[in-house]
């Protein structure tokens, strides 16, 4: 099992909400440092898959492994809670609507979890906040509240907040979809920078150009299945499946 397991491994993932089957036998492996993009029309199950990885939406079938440890392993309730909180600390998540804590400054948003969970001192927390906010170009807004920031700035603080837990894996769920067009680039820049630092990332996006430029591999999902996957230059330029072609064609028309 240990010899060359993939960093993230999703095996036969199945998820139903009541009678609605949202994920149907999904398999996905991500190697350390790899960047995987997920595209697909709304309702195809992209968010559900991403949220299953850190157990926000627990799977109803299948397994998720991270760095040799099964995320959704069967444990008694108490133990499972401990286990899942520890797993989540290793996985950063960035949401479409930022979900910054409005009652905390940028600094407090970044330091709250590390101070609480890793028991770092105030001095260490301060250095951490500066380091992470500087990384996303938000050091000059360190004592601002979310309500005083633009959408792009909020999202950059949200990325800093996730990075402050030093995650092994970052999940992005349409991180730029809620932003005004002119604010998209500043967030994409931060994600590109993470890519250069070889952060392992799974990125749900509807920006094909961005996916093509940062991802090593792109998955096209439709109705709860992975229809096709491959390197972006193949998937975007020369897709094998008719459903992929149709999606890309529609998307291209929509973008015009």
């Amino acid at each position: 099992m240990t010899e060359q397991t993939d960093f993230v491994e999703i095996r036969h993932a199945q998820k139903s909400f009541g009678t609605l089957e949202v994920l149907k036998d999904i398999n996905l492996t991500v190697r350390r440092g790899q960047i995987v993009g997920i595209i697909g029309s709304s309702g195809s199950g992209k968010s559900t898959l991403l949220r299953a990885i850190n157990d926000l939406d627990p799977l109803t079938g299948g397994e998720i492994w991270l760095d040799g440890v099964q995320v959704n392993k069967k444990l008694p309730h108490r133990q499972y809670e401990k286990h899942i909180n520890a797993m989540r600390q290793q996985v950063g998540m960035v949401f479409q609507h930022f979900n910054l804590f409005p009652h905390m400054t940028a600094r407090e948003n970044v330091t709250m979890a590390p101070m609480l969970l890793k028991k770092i001192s105030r001095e260490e927390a301060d250095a951490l906040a500066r380091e992470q906010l500087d990384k996303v170009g938000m050091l000059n807004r360190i004592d601002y509240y979310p309500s005083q920031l633009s959408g792009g700035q909020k999202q950059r603080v949200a990325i800093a907040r996730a990075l402050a837990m030093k995650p092994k894996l970052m999940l992005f769920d349409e991180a730029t979809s809620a932003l005004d067009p002119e604010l998209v680039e500043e967030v994409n820049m931060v994600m590109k920078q993470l890519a250069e630092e070889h952060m392992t990332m799974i990125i749900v996006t509807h920006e094909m150009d961005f996916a093509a430029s940062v991802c090593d591999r792109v998955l096209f999902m439709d109705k709860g299945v992975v229809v096709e996957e491959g390197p972006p230059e193949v998937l975007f330029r020369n897709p094998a499946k008719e459903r992929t072609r149709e999606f890309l064609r529609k998307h291209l028309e929509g973008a015009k």
Partner: protein
Amino acid sequence: MGLDFSIVPKYMDIILLGCAWTIGITVAAALLSFVGGIVFAVIALFSPWIIRQPFRLLEWVFMGTPLLLQLFLIYFGLVQIGIDLPAFVAGIIGLGLHFAVYNSELIQTAILAVDKGQMEAARTLGLSRGEALRKVVIPQAVRDVIPPIGNNMIALLKDSALVSVIGVSELTLSAQRVIGKTYRPFEFYILAAAFYYVINLGMEWVQRRIERRISISR
């Protein structure tokens, strides 16, 4: 016998002492009702059935019966089972718990209204549900209900006059005592009313300051 406020200064010290008691009891009961309101809200929303059900009964008692009766019960009733509280402590507990139940209703609604994404963001960072509630959800819920809680606290100030019936010399009882000596009800009731009004203004001022401070962080 016309109005004559010239005798007021002679009894001013008694009235001011009454004022001090009213302020002290109101502030202490307000703090109790605030902290109690948060605790009650968490119990009502998140505790297991075995704790929640008896708690519901307690809540019903505090909401469904007169505050006056509750004060009598705490002050005179508890003595019978060996709990002999000073009158002002009984008053603070009675007022505090009574209004804690009302605050709890507000805070419960506010907790449920906090965006679900807040809990999710906290959980993805690795916080337990309890930690997420304490650090993220409840602080926001409490901020959202500062204005209506402020209204409850004004009501609490007015109801603090009820503790006079268990013998706490707060503002109303002090005025009555002075009137007993001077036979000047009009002057001293007016004076007491004026002091209630001033305390009221003070509370509204504090509330506005708190609201201004938190307006940026929501």
